């Protein structure tokens, strides 16, 4: 209240009050309009989102660095504490992996011979970009990460994000220097998968919880906890046989999957362009329609 004594202000105050109220209502109405627009024109809204994210990406990049450094220090101290046990475990693992290496070499040679016999066209090699996670938005309402690499670095919408453990998710939108990664736990994520041992096809559907559900299984399919889940490659959005997770629980309410990738340990991801466009590039009616979700929404009948 600047100067209540002035007569001009005394007259202007009620008018100003009224104007403020109208402005407030106008803003609320605009917000609802934005929500409707987001439902109607996803492409435009995603573009706006990408631009704004791009603008604040450098700030987020700087802000996330001290946290990452502090975590690295804590990790190093922890590693020092159980160095001996870790060493022992790694020796055993090395011995085991050496046996696997022999098997893999033999398989590779055999595979090469067989491919030569069949005139097999090999899959083109995938290109990848490593990116750092600069924002974590995995809350109750959405499950996504923001990466510090975008179109400038060659990250493409629809690319697949993995870590050494397995599948993380899919690039939902790219800006110039940032990208939004939709996690497999997001409500909008639907991924065609296979139960590795039985070969049963299903859809892994996120519901914003830590453990996504397995749906669209055939009738009377026997699923046991501990079974490995891999991508099936159906729909052309994901390459086949990427590790996803294991069946965590089977109950009346549904089958839950524990992803291999622990979300709170994701600091860097590898964004791989397998050259798959999937349903994102399928022409629907006359013009190509880009879907906002990263997954594949419907399975083959």
């Amino acid at each position, binding site marked *: 209240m600047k100067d209540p004594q002035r007569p001009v202000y005394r007259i202007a105050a009620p008018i100003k009050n009224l104007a*403020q109220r109208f*402005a*407030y209502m106008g*803003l*609320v109405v*605009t*917000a*609802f*309009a*934005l*929500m*409707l*627009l*987001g*439902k109607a024109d996803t492409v435009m*809204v995603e573009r*706006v*989102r990408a631009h*704004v*994210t791009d603008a*604040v990406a450098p*700030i*987020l990049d700087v*802000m*996330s660095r001290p*946290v*990452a450094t502090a*975590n690295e220090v804590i990790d190093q101290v922890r590693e020092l504490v159980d160095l001996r046990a870790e060493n022992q475990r790694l020796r055993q693992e090395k011995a085991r992996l050496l046996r696997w290496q022999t098997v893999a070499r033999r398989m590779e040679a055999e595979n090469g011979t067989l491919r030569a016999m069949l005139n097999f066209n090999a899959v083109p090699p995938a290109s990848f970009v490593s990116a750092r*996670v*600069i*924002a*974590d*938005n*995995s*809350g*109750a*309402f*959405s*499950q*996504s*990460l*923001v990466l510090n690499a975008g179109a400038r670095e060659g990250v493409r919408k629809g690319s697949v994000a993995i870590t050494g453990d397995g599948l993380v998710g899919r690039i939902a939108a790219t800006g110039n220097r940032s990208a*939004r990664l*939709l996690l497999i736990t997001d*409500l*909008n994520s639907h991924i065609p998968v296979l139960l590795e041992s039985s070969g049963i096809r299903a859809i892994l559907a996120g*519901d*914003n*919880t*830590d453990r996504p559900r397995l749906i669209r299984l055939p009738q009377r399919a026997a699923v046991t906890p501990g079974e490995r889940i891999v991508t099936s490659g159906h729909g052309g959005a994901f390459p086949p046989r990427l590790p996803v997770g294991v069946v965590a629980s089977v109950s009346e309410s549904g089958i839950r999957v524990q992803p291999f990738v622990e*979300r*709170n*340990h*994701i*600091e860097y991801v590898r964004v791989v362009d397998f050259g798959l466009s999937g349903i994102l590039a399928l022409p629907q009616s006359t013009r190509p329609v880009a879907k906002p979700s990263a997954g594949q929404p419907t399975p083959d009948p």
Partner: protein
Amino acid sequence: MKSTVWYRLDALAKNLTPFGITLILVLVGVVPLFLPVYARVAPLLPVMAVYHWAMHRPRLLPAYAVFLIGFLQDVLTGMPIGVNIVVFLTIYGVVVSQRRFFAGKSFLISWLGFALVAAGAAAESWLLVSAIHVTLVDARAVLVQYLVTLGCFPVFAWFFLSWQRSVLGQG
């Protein structure tokens, strides 16, 4: 003459801080901390800021500033754009209209008021997001997040109050 210009610039910079602090809290809210389960139960920092400034300095955080803050929150958290704008504006509208009631009351009353307002905000965002996705979103995480936000409120309220006293002064 020169001193008045500086005085004005100084006052302007100070008056921008409530908006600035709230913006920074939006960014801090999405910085990855790599802690187990943290992301799911992270306190809603901007909610506290909007509540506080709406009650103590609504002139320094006008409705359009709240709109911008909600917009940035929606963009960065990947939520449907508009949800947090509506939620933050609701908090703002409710608190500003009840300012007289809170004036001069103890901190406990302010905390209680926050408990009610934040509960309403959590319910509102849950309803909006569920309506937009046409499915019932898991409400447990929302509840946990609400409780954590409520628990963190005194710390942030203390920070806002001390900022207000030392930087903004009476106004």
